């Protein structure tokens, strides 16, 4: 049954017949009665009259019908609604301001709610996403450091047998290259164990997901974005062949837009059966990151307890075995909750303030307008309307405003909700999709009703309490009733105080952001680009050529030289995971002469000797290693100043020894130098470059030649003259001249872009832009409130001002009388706001992670005071412009 038919059926059960039915039946009764009367001997004219008198009007019958079946309240509310709409149409200025004030608040609040819904309540498209766990080791020494671990296929099976486990997905990322047409494109593939379809439970857009029978078959499922990019969204792609690494794969499915598996290891462009990984890699058995889906109603603690012995057994051979650790299962949502919860809470608080200010504004407008409606309401009371009836009428009018505002607001929220994602794209889960759904709509409807009652009730109660005897004769009473003024004052003061709070918060956010942009970085990001290359580990022939450390180093150096030979490229340096201001894991190390106890921690950066020049990190002491030392990789190290101060404070840093026992990173693609964990002499100290996020202090860092531990990928830092991205084409050509099939990974970016993607930087930018917008809106609303109060009262008191002027009152005095209440309440609001802000300052500073500045508070207060004064004076100048004679004629 269609929705329309369902509604019709429901309506039919409430009101089984139409207007026509009622009227026709009534007419037939009327006729029958009339004929009876004629038969009884009445003349026809008389009979018709009597029938009409006895039965009543046919037109009135529908009302009787609707009242009988209980639709009376409905009808009356409908009447109120129509009346309310008419009243709004008569006052378009008032209506527009009121609706807009609410639309802003409701739109912003709905947007924030849909964002929270999408990001925190429902971010993943997977079936049973709340039961999917990400297992970690938690080291006893560093309970805050979560360490992932990988498992072999047999070990995944061990886990699958455990009682609390529903299923286990293993996945691993790999680089693939599209080889069948012109441009080699490097893409990211995710190999999934073949239970992916049931584990993830996401319905593909076309075709199917990896299924158990795919084991060993070269099939591929496409990511939505990749499908759009590569195939232009062609729906007939299923069954076609995609050639990757010179082997054909059959496309069997396309995943929907929401599916962006996964956030941990990187979103895949294509998804492949895990068995293919086994086939490609001739080396040791591949290992997978596990996701564990628990059975329903199993608590995380119980699952931890049950799985720990199994994982312990598995890990006996792992390097972590010697350390004290325990297993921690973490729901996949948790990292986002930790990172985003506070940000979103703060933004939500901001929009709720905006909404309250909007509501206060509507209350003020309704109260101000109420004065002009007192006459009308008095007439209604006088002819018998109860107080409840009038309150209801006024509330319905308020609801008309709030619902209109909500409609506009929800429409606007569709775009507003995307704003944070645009401003800070890296902070949100890739899979969260913001859309207006049933929960969001329900939320905004509830919000609209709540707002309507919130801002409508006070004016309704106030206006319904008037005495017709007083209100009716004296239309031009001249002086506004005192209680209305009191309410205005309270509302204006509250509005101003809240606005100040928002403005001060915005000021703090903007200051914090400016501080971040001016922070000394310790390196020069301008005109430096980072681009990465991956070696062809999956091509056995090529891999055997590059497997040795020396061959790989030579290959990388060759590419580096070619890039450096591009005209106007000034410096090219190699680095691995060394992009500032990034934060990466720390390693423990041992420095000579240090006692036992917990080994100290430092960030280990694997770089080429030109890294410091390319990034313009100053050398403070000693020297940087030479080209020869760089190719050997052993026995030398350079540290940063933070390292020297923290760990080597007592003596000269140069010549001290350190070693990093944890350096060899076990991976079948890594190749380390012979003495990579041996003692190294510190030969130089460089300046502190940000390495723990842009807003945080620099942590101690050790720089080692990258050749001491080579992976399957490296990055190049290219300093150019002018915008580095314009060099991409010639750099590609330079790389291709070394090896024609060596592709540059997607996503070359400048170091300035790296800063923009820094978590704190993007969060601060988000805060400053959004709170800036919020506070501008709030300021606008507050000013409109003040303006309309003064404008209304001036309009109503024209006579009074005329009399005052006629009697010789000075103009400044009249101006003061006209603006006094608004000015005093605004001033009170500012004072309250200041007090409130200094009280809240500490809390806010903690939440925003930047100091709450008194300076921005006073600047905001001054701006607010000035604009409030203007908003008062602008409408008040009409008061002194009244010609006394004309004003008196009103009497």
């Amino acid at each position: 049954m269609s929705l329309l038919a369902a509604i019709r059926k429901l309506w039919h059960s409430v009101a089984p017949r139409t207007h026509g039915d009622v009227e026709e039946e009534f007419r037939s009764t009327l006729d029958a009665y009339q004929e009876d009367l004629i038969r009884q001997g009445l003349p026809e004219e008389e009979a018709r009259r009597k029938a009409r008198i006895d039965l009543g009007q046919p037109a009135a019958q529908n009302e009787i019908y609707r009242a009988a079946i209980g639709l009376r309240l409905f009808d009356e509310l409908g009447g109120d609604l129509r009346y309310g709409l008419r009243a709004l149409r008569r006052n378009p200025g008032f209506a527009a301001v009121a609706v807009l004030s609410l639309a802003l608040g409701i739109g912003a609040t709905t947007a924030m709610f849909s964002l929270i819904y999408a990001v925190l309540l429902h971010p993943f498209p997977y079936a049973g996403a709340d039961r999917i766990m990400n297992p970690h080791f938690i080291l006893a020494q560093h309970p805050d450091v979560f360490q992932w671990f990988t498992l072999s296929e047999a070990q995944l099976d061990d886990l699958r047998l455990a009682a609390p486990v529903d299923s286990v997905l293993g996945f691993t990322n790999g680089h693939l290259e599209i080889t069948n047409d012109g441009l080699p494109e490097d893409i990211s593939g995710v190999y999934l164990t073949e239970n992916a379809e049931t584990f993830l439970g996401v319905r593909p857009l076309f075709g199917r997901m990896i299924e158990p029978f795919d084991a060993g078959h070269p099939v591929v499922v496409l990511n939505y974005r990749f499908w759009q990019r590569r195939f232009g969204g062609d729906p007939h792609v299923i069954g076609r062949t995609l050639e990757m690494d010179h082997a054909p794969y059959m496309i069997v499915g396309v995943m929907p837009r929401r599916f962006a598996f996964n956030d941990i290891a990187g979103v895949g462009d294509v998804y492949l059966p895990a068995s293919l990984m086994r086939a490609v890699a001739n080396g040791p058995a591949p290992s997978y990151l596990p996701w564990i889906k628990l059975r329903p109603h199993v608590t995380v603690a119980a699952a931890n307890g049950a799985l720990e012995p199994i994982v312990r057994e598995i890990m006996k051979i792992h390097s972590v075995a010697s350390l004290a650790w325990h297993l921690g299962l973490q729901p996949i949502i948790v990292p986002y909750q930790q990172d985003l919860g506070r940000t979103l809470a703060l933004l939500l608080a901001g929009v709720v303030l905006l909404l309250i200010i909007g509501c206060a504004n509507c209350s003020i407008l309704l109260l101000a307008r109420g004065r002009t409606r007192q006459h009308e309401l008095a007439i209604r009371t006088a002819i018998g309307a109860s107080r409840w009836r009038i309150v209801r009428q006024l509330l319905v009018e308020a609801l008309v405003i709030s619902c209109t505002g909500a409609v506009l607001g929800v429409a606007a929220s569709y775009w507003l909700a995307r704003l944070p994602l645009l401003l800070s794209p890296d902070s949100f889960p890739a899979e969260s999709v913001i859309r207006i759904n049933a929960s969001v709509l329900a939320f905004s409807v509830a919000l609209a009703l709540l707002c309507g009652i919130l801002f409508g009730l006070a004016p309704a109660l106030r206006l319904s309490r008037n005495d017709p005897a007083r209100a009716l004769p004296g239309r031009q009473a001249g002086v506004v009733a005192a209680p209305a003024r009191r309410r205005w004052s309270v509302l204006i003061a509250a509005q101003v105080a809240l606005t100040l709070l928002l403005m001060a918060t915005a000021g703090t956010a903007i200051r914090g952001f400016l501080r971040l942009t001016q922070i000394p970085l310790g390196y020069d990001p301008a005109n430096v680009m980072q681009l990465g290359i991956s070696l062809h580990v999956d091509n056995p022939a090529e891999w055997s050529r590059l497997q040795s450390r020396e061959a790989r180093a030579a290959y990388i150096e060759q590419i580096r030289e070619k890039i450096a030979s591009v005209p106007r490229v000034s410096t090219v340096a190699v680095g691995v995971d060394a992009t500032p201001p990034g934060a990466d894991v720390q390693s423990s190390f041992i420095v000579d002469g240090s006692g036992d106890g917990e080994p100290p921690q430092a960030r280990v950066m694997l770089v080429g000797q030109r890294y410091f020049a390319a990034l313009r990190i100053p050398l403070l002491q000693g020297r940087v290693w030479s080209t020869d030392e760089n190719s050997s990789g052993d026995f030398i190290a350079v540290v940063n100043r933070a390292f020297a101060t923290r760990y080597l404070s007592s003596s000269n840093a140069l010549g001290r020894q350190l070693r990093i026992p944890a350096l060899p990173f076990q991976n079948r693609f890594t190749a380390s130098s012979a003495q990579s964990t041996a003692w190294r002499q510190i030969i130089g100290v460089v300046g502190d470059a940000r390495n723990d996020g842009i807003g945080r202090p620099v942590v101690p860092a050790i720089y080692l030649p990258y050749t001491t531990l080579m992976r399957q990928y490296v990055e190049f830092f290219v300093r150019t003259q002018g915008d580095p991205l314009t060099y991409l084409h010639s750099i590609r050509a330079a790389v291709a001249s070394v090896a024609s099939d060596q592709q540059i990974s997607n996503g070359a970016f400048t170091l300035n872009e790296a800063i923009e993607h820094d978590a704190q930087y993007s969060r601060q930018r988000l805060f400053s832009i959004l709170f800036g917008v919020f506070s501008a809106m709030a300021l606008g609303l507050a000013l409109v409130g003040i303006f309309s109060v003064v404008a209304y009262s001036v309009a109503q008191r024209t006579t009074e001002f005329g009399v005052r002027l006629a009697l010789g009152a000075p103009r400044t005095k009249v101006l003061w009388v006209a603006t006094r209440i608004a000015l005093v309440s605004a001033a009170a609001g500012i004072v309250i706001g200041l007090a409130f802000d200094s009280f809240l300052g500490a809390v806010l500073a903690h939440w925003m992670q930047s100091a709450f500045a008194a300076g921005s508070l006073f600047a905001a207060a001054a701006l607010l005071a000035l604009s409030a004064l203007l908003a008062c004076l602008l409408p008040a100048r009409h008061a002194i412009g009244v010609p006394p004679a004309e004003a008196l004629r009103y009497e």
Partner: protein
Amino acid sequence: MTKPVELPQGTLEMLILKAVSLGPLHGYGILLRIQQISGERLEILQGSFYTAIYRLESRGWIKGEWSVSENNRRARFYSLTAAGTRQLKAETAKWIDMAAVVASILDKKADEI
């Protein structure tokens, strides 16, 4: 002619159900039949009569269908639904019960108590 009787609240609906239970009738016919059965002793107000009809219909106790009346006029004929039959039975039993109790109280003489 005997004295007209005023109906207690709510009994009109029961009478309409009874009238309709004897066979489908249009609105005016129901009115006439009730008056006829009561021996013209019930004066039914037209306004409250239709209110009662509408309410019974919206509760699903009677249902109306358009048809042609005895003097060839289109009229809405009401008949009892299954729910209406049950309702009539229940109301009748309740009414008889109540009438008996009230009558027995009113019949008592002082010495019988």
